[in-house]
């Protein structure tokens, strides 16, 4: 960093005016007898955007704080943040090299799609059962493990699709059994304080699954072969300036480079996402699931059995986590402990997107993917940048909890 001071002062400026806006605006709105539900959050982002130049007009005119106003303010904040970073460190790869930036963004989106798929499972469980599954990361881990062992140890040479299918079945079945034995009694009032029980019992499941896998597989990291190597293609021939494919990589326009495992994982995730949307919006069972998430009593009146919907939602959520694990086992090396950071990331995503919101989970996944890509690409010390990957999403979580605990599309938990 050449001029770290510029970045530091910009950050301080944003934080100071953001805090001031967040604290003072609701009081002014309350005194003027206006609606204050958005005032704290809106005041904070508007203050962070232009400081006194936006806060003073806001306090004098006190317009209704709309989503559009907040959106513009957030865009300005991000702009100031990026501009001050670029001024502070003009030689950084992610400022000077446009191709690197686009590659990094593409990779962020690609990985964000898979994060989104995993978080979608968690948010599906939450929207139907009202339970946050703390074993979500373990389903992710098991999905990857089963895929690896199917394709490399038990049935070497089998199509990766079969291995992925097997991992889906295994995680679905584990989710099904667990829900039937441990979560079903919650609905009947047999369990006191069900929220607390759910937190602990899913955590117990995580503990059990993690050490069960460790006892079976030992703690040696494994990594699957890439599922579908690209063919060798160069367009136009010889130079490959438009499109260049090698078995492990694809490069478009000589600039955007995406590794094969991430690409196939994202394509798999998109296919699953399309299948999931079709299932939720076009089939009877999917509509029944959404009906239960909106109103259990009314759904029961129309002949939907909420209990079996609970089981289905939990098993499907577990399967989605297993599927994202299955598609990522060719990207990262796999240990029985990989589930924990992945689960923590999913928690961030569903809080960011709003608990129980399906589009929120997907959008949240993209945002977290982009932030992680920006973090790993832009922080000058590369080893440190990689070590702090879990920290980037935690910064988002802290900001969301401070500013808008209901998330982007959330309802109150």
């Amino acid at each position, binding site marked *: 960093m050449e001029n770290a001071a510029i970045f530091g002062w910009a950050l301080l400026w944003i934080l100071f005016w953001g805090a001031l806006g967040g604290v003072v605006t609701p009081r002014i709105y309350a005194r003027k007898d206006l609606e204050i539900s958005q005032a704290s959050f809106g005041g904070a982002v508007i203050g962070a955007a232009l400081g006194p130049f936006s806060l003073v007009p806001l306090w004098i005119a006190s317009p209704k704080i709309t989503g559009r106003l907040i959106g513009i303010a957030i865009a300005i904040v991000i702009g100031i943040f990026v501009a001050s970073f670029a001024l502070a460190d003009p030689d950084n790869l992610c400022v000077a090299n446009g191709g690197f930036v686009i590659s990094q963004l593409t990779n962020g989106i690609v990985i964000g799609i898979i994060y989104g798929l995993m978080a979608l499972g968690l948010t599906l469980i939450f929207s139907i059962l009202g339970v946050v599954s703390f074993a979500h990361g373990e389903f992710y881990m098991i999905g990857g493990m089963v895929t690896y062992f199917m394709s490399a140890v038990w049935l070497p040479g089998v199509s990766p699709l079969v291995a992925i299918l097997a991992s889906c079945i295994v995680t679905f079945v584990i989710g099904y059994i667990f829900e039937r*034995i441990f979560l079903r009694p919650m609905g009947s009032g047999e369990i006191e304080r069900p929220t607390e029980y759910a937190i602990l019992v899913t955590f117990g499941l995580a503990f059990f699954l993690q050490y069960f896998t*460790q006892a079976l597989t030992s703690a040696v990291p494994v990594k699957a072969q890439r599922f579908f190597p690209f063919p060798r293609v160069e367009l136009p021939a010889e130079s490959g300036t438009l499109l260049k494919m090698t078995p492990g990589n694809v490069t478009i326009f000589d600039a955007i480079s995406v590794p094969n495992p991430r690409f196939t994982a994202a394509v798999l995730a998109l296919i699953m996402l399309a299948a999931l949307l079709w299932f939720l919006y076009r089939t009877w069972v999917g509509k029944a699931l959404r009906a239960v998430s909106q109103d259990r009593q009314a759904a029961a009146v129309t002949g939907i059995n909420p209990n079996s919907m609970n089981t289905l939602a939990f098993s499907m959520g577990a399967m989605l986590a297993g599927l994202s694990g299955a598609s990522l086992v060719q990207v990262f090396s796999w240990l029985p402990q990989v589930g924990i950071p992945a689960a923590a990331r999913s928690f961030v995503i569903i809080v960011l997107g709003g608990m129980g919101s399906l589009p929120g989970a997907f959008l949240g996944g993209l945002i977290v993917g982009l932030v992680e890509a920006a973090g790993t690409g832009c922080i000058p010390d590369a080893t*440190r940048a990689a070590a702090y990957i879990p920290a980037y999403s935690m910064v988002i979580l802290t900001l969301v*909890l401070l500013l808008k605990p209901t998330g982007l599309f959330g309802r109150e938990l």
Partner: protein
Amino acid sequence: MNPTAIYRVAGSIAIVLLLAIPFASSELGGVGPLVLSSYFMHLAITAFFYAILASSWSLLAGYAGQFSFGHMAFMAIGGYTSGLIGKFFRFTTAPSELCTDIPLLGNWWLVILNIRRVGTIDESCLDMARAETLPAGTLIVFPPVWASIAMGLVMGATFGLLVGWLVLRLRSTYLALFTIGFSEILRASISAEIPITEGQSGLELVPLFPGGLLGFTSTSKIPPYYAMLLLFLLAMALMTWLAGSRFGLFIRAIREDEEAAAALGVNIVRYKVLVFVITSTLAAAAGALQGHYIGIITPNTLIILQMSLVIAMAVIGGLENIYAASVGAIVITFALELLRTSINIGPLHVDMTLWRLVFFGLLLMLTLRFQRNGLLFPILERISRGGVAEETVSIREESEEDWEEEVEVDQLEDSPSDSGEESAG
């Protein structure tokens, strides 16, 4: 005898026994045929360490209904703060000129050593200062262990306050979500900041009593035994007093129904933050003491295994009773050591060292599902009742059944207001 008297007598006997155990240790020659090895003494110290963690976690989770998965993070904050103060802070009688010097009272200076780069064998700035600038006869004093442990407590409380203030305004699920991430981020930063924390290789701490104590050497198990026992008893006394006071009533009211408690005038956020800070500080105290006793602390103490163990101890002992949780911790610490074996079932060779944790995970889930009060708490309760109160218990059960029937009748008459929503919330 009434139950309180039985509790008191049993408690006094237990305390006397715990105080007497070191006299049977091999260091003091044992008592007759009973000679406890120093390995046993080590286990006992570890058991007290886990007992402090499990019982303070049960105060947070079982009494106040706030589920933190970051208890081990606060434990590590205590240990690392104390260790880092021992590593970087010195008191001298003259400024070193090369390090960061902060003047204190009189002619004493607080010297903060420089952070050395990884992979170099640079001398520390104080060593260089001693060779060059420091006048002869300058005293260099290590910070006392008790003071660095106290700073560990302060840091634990500060972080507890920050996390609690951020998250406890919201529902309890958010605390669970946030603390998992908090302990992951702490583990990541401790592993990454190698020049400060030594990363995965672990931060070394000075022994609890660097010069020995009362004729015992610094590696003797007996002074740390009494130190950890003292902390355990102090923690239990503090928590017993808290649980029995208005504070205990308030936090249990919060657990049962936050809205109702708030409506009755309990400042729910303040009391939730307070109980979180107190239990985090206890965890930090246990961590600092254990760190100095073991002599090293690594980021691996933060992995979820450790947290799950503490939870399993508290739940299997009895989540809603601090004594049951601490007894559970002691029993499970010893059980885990006894299970470090392997057994042969027919042709199968089973390495129990691996499978014991699977077993405890399963036991944790089954306890939660079928025996919510824990496995040890009912036994403790039976002892304290002494059998005489069974009649009252059966009467109470009958009256509860009556009450439930009445409720059912009420519900039929009032037409139930969506009970599904309740189970979902």
